[in-house]
């Protein structure tokens, strides 16, 4: 058993988003980006990704942001060649580029997208699911019928880089998410060659109850404390106080 010394893995911590992405980006790479709508998106890393001017990106993300916000920024600057998503509404620039044939889109059912990413991270080559059987999603895919149910074969999905957002992180890369801002972030953290995380609060290793950690540090190669979170709400819906 190892002696109980705890050398903190400070090498994982970077001063800002730009330095955290240094050396990871080149034209044509595939990037996974966490978040559901604008909830739980890596705001700082997306800005740095835009400012890097890297081009021809394939972006794996459930949504495409809205105009000028989140991935919408990278669409505006024409850095995206292809999106792999489940839903891309609420984005006029996306629509314009798509209809002009400037942008490719591969739609995946949301659960299939999440499971393909999990499979990619978990060393699963592919899996059989009922989702999409009998629809256009099944076209060109292998299938098999078992007890009258049709299952289609979906493949694991990986990326060169994943950018994810957590609520709190420690210097070891352990991450804890908050409420529905968790969404695609933990599964994307497992599925890229390099995962870069941003957190609202960076704390020393040992701050977390080990039973509460959502993403173990092994999945996070670099992390930063983010700044200036806007956390824009897409549909502010309230009820009257009675």
């Amino acid at each position, binding site marked *: 058993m190892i002696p109980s010394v705890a050398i903190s893995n400070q090498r994982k911590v970077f001063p800002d988003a730009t330095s955290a992405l240094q050396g990871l980006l080149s034209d044509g790479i595939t990037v996974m980006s966490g978040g559901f709508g604008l909830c739980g998106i890596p705001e700082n890393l997306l800005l740095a990704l835009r400012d890097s001017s890297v081009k021809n990106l394939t972006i794996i993300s459930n949504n495409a942001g809205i105009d000028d916000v989140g991935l919408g920024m990278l669409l505006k600057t024409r850095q995206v060649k292809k999106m792999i998503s489940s839903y891309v509404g609420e984005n006029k620039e996306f629509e314009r580029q798509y*209809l002009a044939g400037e942008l490719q889109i591969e739609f995946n059912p*949301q659960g299939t997208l999440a499971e393909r990413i999990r499979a990619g991270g978990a060393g699963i080559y592919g899996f059989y699911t009922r989702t999409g059987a009998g629809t256009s999603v099944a076209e060109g895919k292998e299938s098999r019928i078992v007890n009258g149910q049709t299952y289609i074969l979906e493949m694991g999905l990986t990326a060169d880089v994943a950018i994810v957002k957590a609520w709190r992180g420690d210097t070891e890369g352990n991450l804890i998410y908050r*409420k*529905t801002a968790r969404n695609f972030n933990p599964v994307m953290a497992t599925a890229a060659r390099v995962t870069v995380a941003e957190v609202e609060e960076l704390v020393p290793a040992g701050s977390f109850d080990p039973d509460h950690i959502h993403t173990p540090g092994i999945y996070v190669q670099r992390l930063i404390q983010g700044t200036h979170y806007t956390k824009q*709400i897409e549909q502010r*819906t309230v009820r009257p106080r009675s």
Partner: protein
Amino acid sequence: MWSREQLAARAAKELQDGFYVNLGIGIPTLVANYIEHDQHIVLQSENGMLGMGPFPYAGEEDADLINAGKQTISTLPYSSFFSSADSFAMIRGGHIDLSILGAMEVAENGDLANWMVPGKMIKGMGGAMDLVAGVKRVVVVMEHVAKDGSAKFKPKCLLPLTGANVVDMLITDLAVFSRPDRNSKFELIELAPGVTVEEINAKTTAAFTLKAPMASI
């Protein structure tokens, strides 16, 4: 004929005490308003939450707490959060008792089309295909006919499918159609006030059977 609210109220009758339920966007969301107070219904939101609470009071909105329609929501004492992968494992694995969804077309064999609007930009299927493939029972709520008056309950869907043979019950503003299992035909089991079987026949191109006492309604 039922209003949107009445439609939602009718759909709410399909909820049973103890059910875990996923409600789609639009009229299905309204169903939550008609849950009986003595029923314990747990709502799932496919972006990663069980025990979805009501919209927050003004000033209590939390950007980290939204539903699948991206609306701000609140927690309840028994809420739990999980990842998208875990959420759809729950859905795909058949753990949700009931899903109530909108539709553009339903076919007499139970096929459902609700993700591509003809002639419009394709926005994607989101979680709809996963829900219809995974949830134990799928109830569709929709207007009985399209804006041009054409039937939406049809022999065959013309729009791209969301799922093949996945609808268990169809509730429209005019009537309710149900079937006991996915090998059976739909049966007209209920009419909205003032609606006749003749009107349904005129506005429906799908084949369906008639519940025996229905003719006398």
